[in-house]
């Protein structure tokens, strides 16, 4: 049973560019959440997707957007990259929030470096 997968593993971009990160959830999970983890910090919630809609959003600017596909996989897009966007981007999957399964299982992350 494959866990949460993310691609790419590493990415280097320059300021002002745009980036797309991808995530496939754990088998049987239909909810995907994205988190940003800066060095030495805990993960910060970006947003959560369920049924192809943004269900919940954290305190991130509109430059951060996402999408969920019918197969439950998800993308995170970041426009107009800033140096401060350099971080480990984590995807987590879980069963539907109101079904009682609140555990979130994380992927290995995508390390984004903005130069």
């Amino acid at each position: 049973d494959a866990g949460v997968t993310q691609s790419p593993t590493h990415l280097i971009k320059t300021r002002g560019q745009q980036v797309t990160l991808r995530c496939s959830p754990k088998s049987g999970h239909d909810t995907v959440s994205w988190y940003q983890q800066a060095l030495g910090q805990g993960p910060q919630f970006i947003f959560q997707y369920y049924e192809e809609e943004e269900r919940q959003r954290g305190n991130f600017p509109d430059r951060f957007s996402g999408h969920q596909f019918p197969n439950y996989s998800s993308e995170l897009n970041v426009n107009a990259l800033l140096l401060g966007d350099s971080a480990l981007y984590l995807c987590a999957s879980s069963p539907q929030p109101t079904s009682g399964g609140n555990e979130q299982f994380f992927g290995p992350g995508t390390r984004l470096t903005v130069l």
Partner: protein
Amino acid sequence: QKEVEQDPGPLSVPEGAIVSLNCTYSNSAFQYFMWYRQYSRKGPELLMYTYSSGNKEDGRFTAQVDKSSKYISLFIRDSQPSDSATYLCATGGLTGGGNKLTFGTGTQLKVEL
């Protein structure tokens, strides 16, 4: 004030020691609590999940929650060098239609031979 406070350490203990890791939280709406282990440059791995006050045990790990004082703990018995990692506490509640997690900053643990 952060919603979840966690001492970043680092915490260094000898092999075989009992480790105590702690977090406090401020939001009474938080309903469930998790502990994750994160090795360097890897994704967090779920260790423990609980949604009520009291203790939950799994092998060498015990999670403890005291909702009255908003205090959560993770105990590791017979600590091993392979336990050296960053331990993240996380809390959540069914608010805003979703179940986002709020994390502490993580405590870096080193278990020495």
